């Protein structure tokens, strides 16, 4: 359905949807749509009776499953396990230690004009770029 639109335009539409989802959570529940914080809080208190976090994660996983099905999502490993697992550990550890990821610090933090989040975004973009450059040809 997007075939005749410029890829940058489609990307921006996707970004607007992500922004609207974050707005919905702020307007409805007064919470920041930070995926890493929501996930790590569910992990540390899975039986919390106020389980809006479970509902958000269910929407994210079910939505991704339904909408992503027709798309070309790579099912073959793009990275071997000896890179994929350490990368996951780094992302999990780093987002809890640094209190946020691309959604919490990026989408929401920048929207809130938070200097703290701007510093975090600049830092993880920089190390992401360095990692990609160093890893080129590694796998």
């Amino acid at each position, binding site marked *: 359905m997007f075939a005749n639109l410029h890829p940058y335009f489609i990307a921006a539409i996707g970004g607007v949807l992500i922004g609207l989802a974050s707005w919905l959570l702020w307007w409805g529940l007064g919470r920041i749509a930070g995926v890493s914080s929501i996930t790590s809080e569910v992990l*540390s208190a899975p039986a919390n009776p106020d389980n809006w976090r479970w509902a958000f994660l269910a929407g994210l996983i079910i939505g991704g499953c339904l909408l992503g099905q027709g798309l070309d999502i790579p099912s073959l490993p793009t990275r071997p396990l000896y890179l994929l697992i350490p*990368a996951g550990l780094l*992302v999990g550890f780093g987002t809890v230690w640094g209190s946020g990821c691309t959604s919490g610090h990026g989408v929401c933090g920048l929207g809130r004009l938070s200097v703290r989040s701007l510093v975090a975004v600049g830092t993880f973009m920089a190390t992401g770029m360095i990692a990609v450059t160093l890893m080129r040809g590694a796998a």
Partner: protein
Amino acid sequence: MSTPGQASPFRAGRLGLAFSAGLVFAAGLVVSGMTQPLKVMGFLDITAINKGAFPGLWDPTLAFVMGGAVCVTLLAFAWTQRLTPSPLFDPQFDEPRQNQIDVPLIGGAVLFGAGWGIAGYCPGPALATALLSVDALIFTGAMLAGMLICKSFLRKKTSPES
């Protein structure tokens, strides 16, 4: 706070709204290409900008994702609290209070960025495709383990007497 004794329409509203936000968030990730690790790495591969005419082999697409998203959240965080004294399904807006730039913030971002660059997944896209891709599922499992490791590490640091 929502407690188990609270009126059920309120509780249903909270859950329904959070679920819908998750669905729309996932739609945005899929449409934008964030769920494709190769695309993410193509964006982070900034040095490829030198290869050929601008932008070379660098793929700037994902900058438009962040741009589109932040345009909306700038309005969201500027307007919502003026339009309504409290959220629809919560007594108050839970504004992040931290504003210091400290070692955990920078250290965490350094580690997160490194992992993001190595695999091309950040937490949202990994969860959104966890049931579609074996890669994403393995990554998600490792990510959850990393979160638990960090939590126990922080707990030890803040309560040395226990």
